[in-house]
């Protein structure tokens, strides 16, 4: 009985090791060409790191997004967008919806709401 159990356990270990190596072998091949910065990933998870836009891209994006909000000032630093100035509450959500598409790291809303 004990022997059989050991055999089964041993077999399971061999099988899982085999699966583990197979998954490890095939994983980098797929990502090698696509991903610039290859990060160590657990084979089972599909979670990729969050993509944050560069400060240059954010600055351009923020400029376009705030063009129609004359009271709003937006600063970009290290992926964070900081909003200062004034806005009407009715317009806040629309502005935030646009800013959220720019892939910022974070948005600090310090706006005074009129």
């Amino acid at each position, binding site marked *: 009985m004990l022997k059989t159990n050991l055999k089964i356990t041993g077999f399971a270990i061999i099988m899982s090791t085999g699966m583990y190596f197979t998954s490890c072998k095939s994983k980098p091949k797929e990502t090698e060409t696509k991903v610039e910065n290859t990060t160590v990933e657990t084979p089972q998870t599909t979670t990729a790191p*969050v993509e944050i836009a560069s400060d240059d891209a954010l600055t351009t994006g923020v400029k376009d997004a705030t063009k129609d909000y004359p009271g709003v000032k937006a600063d970009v630093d290290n992926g964070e967008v900081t909003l200062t100035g004034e806005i009407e509450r009715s317009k806040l959500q*629309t502005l*935030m919806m*646009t800013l959220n598409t720019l892939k910022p790291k974070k948005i600090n809303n310090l706006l005074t709401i009129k």
Partner: protein
Amino acid sequence: MAVQMGALQGKYQELIEAAKSAGVNNLQVREQDNVLYIDGEAATGQIKDNLWSIYNKIDPDFRAGDLIMNINVSAMAPGAKATVTTQSSNLNIRKGPGTDQPIVGKAEHMSTVTLISKTSDQWWLVRSEQGEEGYAYAQYLSVQ
């Protein structure tokens, strides 16, 4: 494998559940450096608006700075017609995708434009009812 649920996923659980039940495609919920990132594709603008209402309810006036929600609307697709939903003014149609680009035309408030191709989440190449082609800011386009 056990899925770890961070504190922010708890705070915004109602939002995440609403996104799931509304059938948001490619839904990704990630927590990184004390910010929660929710990405996905909603079928319609109404679903997106509803998710934003829930966000505003959980975090009034978006003050906490702990969530970035980027929900695209899949109905915004080449060939679709969109209404110009500016506050009241006409929408600038520009030579290129950027507010620094020259204005080549205007699409009237509440008129219809045809979406031609997507440059980014912010800019679309469109054709106005008058047949003018150029780039318009996506925030002011609502798919019919």
